[in-house]
C-alpha cells in the first residue's frame, strides 16, 4: 500500500482510528463481539421485535400466494404500485455498500475500512429484500424461472430486448458479485475467529468457513490481486444496476419516465439513500457495541458529505425534469409536471422536496455534520424522501398518462403496507444476526490501518 496523503485534506489531522490501538487490540475488540460477548437483553429484544415483523411478512406473503396480487392496491392503469416502489428503493439502498467497498477502495480512501464490512452486509440484505418484490409481483412466483433463458419444452425464450429481462440479469449479477466480494473479504477474518474461538462448535464453523486460510505471503498476494479486480469489476457493475433499473422506466414512453436523465439521477439517488441507510445503521451499532474508536465522528461526517453531494445531484435531477417538461413543450410532460404540483398526489411531491432537497442542506453546517443525533434524524428523513421519490415516479405517471379515459387513482392496501413493513423487519433482523454472527468490521483491514497510521503519523520513514 502506498502511503495516502489523506491528512492534508482535513483542517485538523484527526485520525481514522482513535490512538492507542494495536493489532491485538483491534482484533480483540471486534472479534469479541462475535465470540465472547454474552447475548444482551437489548439484542434479544431487538431480535424478537424484528423477528415478529418477519412473521407479518410471512403472513402477507402467504395470503398473497393464496389470493393473488388482487389483495394489493394495484389495478389497471396502476399495475406497478408498492411492489416496484419498494423494489427500486431497496435496491438503491444496497448501492452505498458497493460504493464504499469498491469505489472507495479503488480511490484508496482509508475511511472505508471500518464501515465497508457492514455496508456490504447491508447491500446483501437490501438486495434480498428488493429481489422479493418483483418475484411477488409476478403473481405466480413459482414460475419466476420463466424469466431465465433455459431450454424449455415449450421452445420459448426470453425477450432480450426488454429492460425487464436486463433487470433480471443486472440484479442477479449484482447479488452474486456482492456476495462473492463480501465473502472473499471475510475469509481472513473468519480465520482470525477460528484461531481465537474457544468453543468447539465455533472453531468448527469458522474453521470450515475460513477454508484453511493461513495468511501466507503467497495467499495474500493472490488475495489482494483478486480483491482489487473484484473492486474494479464491482464499480461499473454498481453504476450499471441502477441504470438498468432506471431503463425499466426510461425506455417506456410514459410521461415523466421517458427521459435520458434517469440513469445518472437514479444512480445518484441510490447512493444518496444508501449512505442515509449506512448512517441509520452505523449510529446505533457503534453505540451498542462500543465501536466509537473505529467508526469515529469523522467517518460519520464523511458519510454526511457524500450524502450532501449526491443529494445535490438528485436535486439537479428534479430541477431538470421540471425544466425539460417546459423546454420540450410536450403537452403530456407539461401536464405531468402540473399534476405533480397540483394533482391528487401533490402532497407526496412536496414532502419529497422537503425531505430530499431542503433537509440535506443542513449538512452544509459543520456542527450538524458532527452532531450524531442530528445525522441520525436526517438519515431517516432522507430514507423516507427517497421512498417518496419512487412513489411519485411510479404512481403519478401511471395515474396520469395520455388519455383521460386511462386515468385512475392508486391507494395501497393493508397488505401493501404489511409487505413493506415486513421487509423492513427482515432487513433489520438480518442485521441483528449479522452483528452477532460475523465480524461487523473488517479486522485484517483494521490491522493494516493501524500499521499505516502508526507509520504515516509516527514518522518512521
Amino acid at each position, binding site marked *: 500500500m502506498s502511503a495516502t496523503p489523506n491528512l492534508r485534506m482535513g483542517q485538523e489531522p484527526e485520525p481514522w482510528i482513535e490512538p492507542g490501538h494495536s*493489532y*491485538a487490540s483491534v482484533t480483540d475488540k471486534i472479534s469479541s463481539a462475535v465470540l465472547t460477548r454474552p447475548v444482551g437483553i437489548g439484542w434479544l429484544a431487538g431480535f424478537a421485535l424484528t423477528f415478529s415483523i418477519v412473521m407479518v411478512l410471512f403472513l402477507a406473503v402467504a395470503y398473497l400466494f393464496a389470493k393473488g396480487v388482487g389483495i394489493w392496491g394495484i389495478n389497471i392503469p396502476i399495475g406497478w404500485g408498492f411492489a416496484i416502489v419498494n423494489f427500486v428503493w431497496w435496491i438503491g439502498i444496497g448501492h452505498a455498500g458497493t460504493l464504499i467497498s469498491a469505489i472507495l477502495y479503488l480511490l484508496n480512501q482509508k475511511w472505508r475500512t471500518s464501515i465497508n464490512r457492514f455496508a456490504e452486509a447491508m447491500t446483501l440484505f437490501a438486495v434480498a429484500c428488493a429481489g422479493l418484490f418483483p418475484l411477488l409481483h409476478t403473481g405466480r412466483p413459482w414460475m419466476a424461472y420463466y424469466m431465465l433463458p433455459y431450454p424449455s419444452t415449450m421452445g420459448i425464450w426470453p425477450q432480450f430486448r426488454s429492460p425487464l*429481462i436486463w433487470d433480471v440479469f443486472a440484479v442477479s449479477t449484482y447479488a452474486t458479485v456482492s456476495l462473492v466480494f463480501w465473502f472473499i473479504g471475510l475469509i481472513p477474518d473468519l480465520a*482470525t475467529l477460528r484461531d481465537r474461538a474457544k468453543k468447539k462448535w465455533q472453531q468448527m464453523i469458522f474453521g470450515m468457513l475460513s477454508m*484453511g486460510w*493461513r495468511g501466507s505471503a503467497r495467499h*495474500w498476494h493472490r488475495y489482494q490481486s483478486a480483491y482489487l479486480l473484484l473492486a474494479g469489476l464491482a464499480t461499473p457493475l454498481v453504476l450499471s444496476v441502477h441504470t438498468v433499473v432506471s431503463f425499466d422506466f426510461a425506455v417506456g414512453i410514459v410521461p415523466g419516465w421517458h427521459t435520458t436523465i434517469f440513469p445518472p439521477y437514479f444512480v445518484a439517488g441510490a447512493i444518496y439513500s444508501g449512505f442515509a441507510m449506512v448512517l441509520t445503521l452505523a449510529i446505533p451499532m457503534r453505540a451498542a457495541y462500543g465501536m466509537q474508536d473505529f467508526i469515529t465522528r469523522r467517518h460519520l461526517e464523511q458519510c454526511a458529505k457524500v450524502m450532501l453531494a449526491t443529494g445535490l445531484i438528485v436535486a439537479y435531477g428534479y430541477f431538470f425534469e421540471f425544466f425539460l417538461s417546459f423546454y420540450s413543450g410536450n403537452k403530456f410532460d407539461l401536464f405531468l409536471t402540473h399534476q405533480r404540483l397540483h394533482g391528487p398526489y401533490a402532497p407526496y411531491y412536496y414532502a419529497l422536496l422537503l425531505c430530499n432537497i431542503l433537509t440535506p442542506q443542513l449538512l452544509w453546517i459543520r456542527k450538524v455534520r458532527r452532531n450524531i443525533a442530528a445525522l441520525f434524524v436526517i438519515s431517516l428523513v432522507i430514507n423516507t424522501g427517497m421512498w417518496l421519490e419512487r412513489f411519485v415516479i411510479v404512481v403519478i405517471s401511471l395515474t396520469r398518462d395520455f388519455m383521460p379515459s386511462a386515468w385512475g387513482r392508486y391507494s395501497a392496501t393493508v397488505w401493501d403496507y404489511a409487505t413493506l413493513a415486513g421487509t423492513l423487519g427482515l432487513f433489520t433482523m438480518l442485521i441483528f444476526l449479522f452483528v452477532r454472527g460475523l465480524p461487523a468490521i473488517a479486522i485484517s483491514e483494521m*490491522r493494516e490501518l493501524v500499521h499505516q497510521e502508526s507509520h504515516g503519523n509516527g514518522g518512521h520513514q
Partner: protein
Amino acid sequence: MSEKRSQLFGVMGEFSTPEDLVAATKKVREAGYKHIEAYTPFPVEGLAEAVGFKWTAVPLLTLLGGIAGGVGGFGLEYWVSAITYPENIGGRPLNSWVAFIPVTFEMTVLGASLVAAISMLALNKLPQPYHPVFNVERFALASTDKFFLCIEARDAKFNLAEASKLLQSLHAEHINEVKDEE
C-alpha cells in the same frame, strides 16, 4: 487408530513487526533458501517479493473469465433472438445488438468476478483444512499480531540446526519445529 508418524515440515521463526519479518525474509533468501513462506495477519508490502513470489495468474484468468462471460452472454442473445426463436416484430432487425449490450455487460462482469474469486481460492489451494503450520501452537497468533517465517524441510539446503541458527541470528522471538503428522 495407528500411531502417528510425524516428519519434519520445517522450522518457523516468530517476529513482532512486519518490518522485522521482511528484513529477515530477505536475509534468509540471500542465504540461499528457496522454499520459504511468510505468514502475516494482514498483507505486508514487499513480502511476496521477499519470499520469491512474483507472478500470479489471477488477473489473466479474470480477463479470460470476463471475455468468456461477455462472448457467452452476447452469443446466447444472438442465438436466441436471431436463430432459434426469431420474432418478426414490424420487420425490425433480429440481431438488434444495441439492445443486447446490458446483458452482455452483466455477463462479462459476472464471468470475470466468479473467475477472480474462484481462481484466487484454487491457486491458493483452498479449501485446505489441514496444513502442518497449524501444528505450531503459537501459529494461532498469525491471524492476530505475530509475523512468522517458515523455512521448509523440502529445501535442498535445509538442515534443522543451521536453519534454526539462521533464524536465531535474525532475532526471531520464538523458534519452533513444524511437524507434519500423517
